């Protein structure tokens, strides 16, 4: 009984610590809600810490291809993400166009993109540190020009 309790305690503490560590970097969150037709709903919530880690498990040739395809704009994404981390709370872009609405801002070190139009809303939230990390990894894979 005592042994079982110890095992349970150890397991519980490990799960709690692992969970806390995983979610410490924040969440990548993508919510797409469509109200047209059958109404498409996509909700993806991922711990941000997992993404750079998961990239190490992607086959090398696929990563090289991704690096090659994104070579043109990845240094720009990396530069923007790196610089935006200095502005954790900022309103960057807000566009109202009739019934369409786009809002890009940073909040708590996350880049938030909200886009709305009749029949569809898209909300994306991603920690800037994750964008910086991923873009840095992809930029490093790009062929030297």
């Amino acid at each position: 009984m005592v042994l079982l309790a110890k095992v349970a305690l150890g397991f519980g503490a490990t799960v709690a610590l692992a969970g806390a560590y995983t979610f410490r970097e924040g969440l990548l969150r993508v919510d797409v809600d469509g109200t047209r037709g059958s109404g498409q709903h996509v909700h993806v919530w991922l711990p941000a810490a997992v993404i750079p880690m998961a990239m190490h498990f992607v086959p090398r040739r696929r990563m090289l291809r991704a690096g090659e395809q994104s070579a043109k704009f990845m240094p720009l994404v990396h530069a923007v993400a790196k610089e935006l981390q200095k502005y954790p709370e900022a309103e960057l872009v807000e566009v109202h166009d009739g019934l369409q609405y786009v809002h890009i801002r940073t909040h708590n070190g996350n880049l938030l993109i909200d886009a709305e139009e009749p029949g569809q809303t898209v909300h994306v939230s991603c920690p800037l540190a994750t964008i910086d990390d991923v873009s840095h990894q992809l930029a490093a894979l790009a062929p030297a020009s």
Partner: protein
Amino acid sequence: MTSRTRHLFPLIAFLAACFLYAPLGTQAQTSSTPSSTSAHGERWLHVRVISTNSKGETVRVNVPLELAEKVLPAIDHDRLHKGKVRIGCMDCDGVDVRTIFEAVRSAKDGEFVTVDSNDEDISVTKKDGQLLVHVHDKNKPKHSQVEVKVPMKVVEALLSGSKDELDIAAGLHALAGQGDVELVSVKDDDNTIRVWLDSKNVTTD
């Protein structure tokens, strides 16, 4: 459960709870309304477009100058390369823009161009280290007004590159050294456009 385990349990539970809720705690602390005034020394370029048409389009863009300055050299597209844009018409129809600028820069303050006609009034003035352009279009029902104010140091920085290019990055750097200034103001029947520089990270107007 032994007495030792029983003593340790609250401590472990407390530590686990601290780690687990650390991000939420941080969020709770930082989710208060941000101040509109940015950190010391930050300069923000604001663009606001308000359309008075039936759709009521509005565009608000706030860009930290430092960010623009750092990011611009990372863009390599079309005519923009390493923060410089190739324009290829600095010698437009035999008019050497650089020479004219040099002449204006070294000249005393004054009104250099004045056009008064039935259709529009135009004036180009140099005053207190700034180049002011004013256009008043009389043809439109509400008489459109365009005001452009460019610090001479910014123009100088823009023209600091090679012959047929504008050094945008240098221009932004020079702009960062200026005080709060309204750079462009356009008012006409359909749109109100403002481009200005200040230390606030939100559009407050």
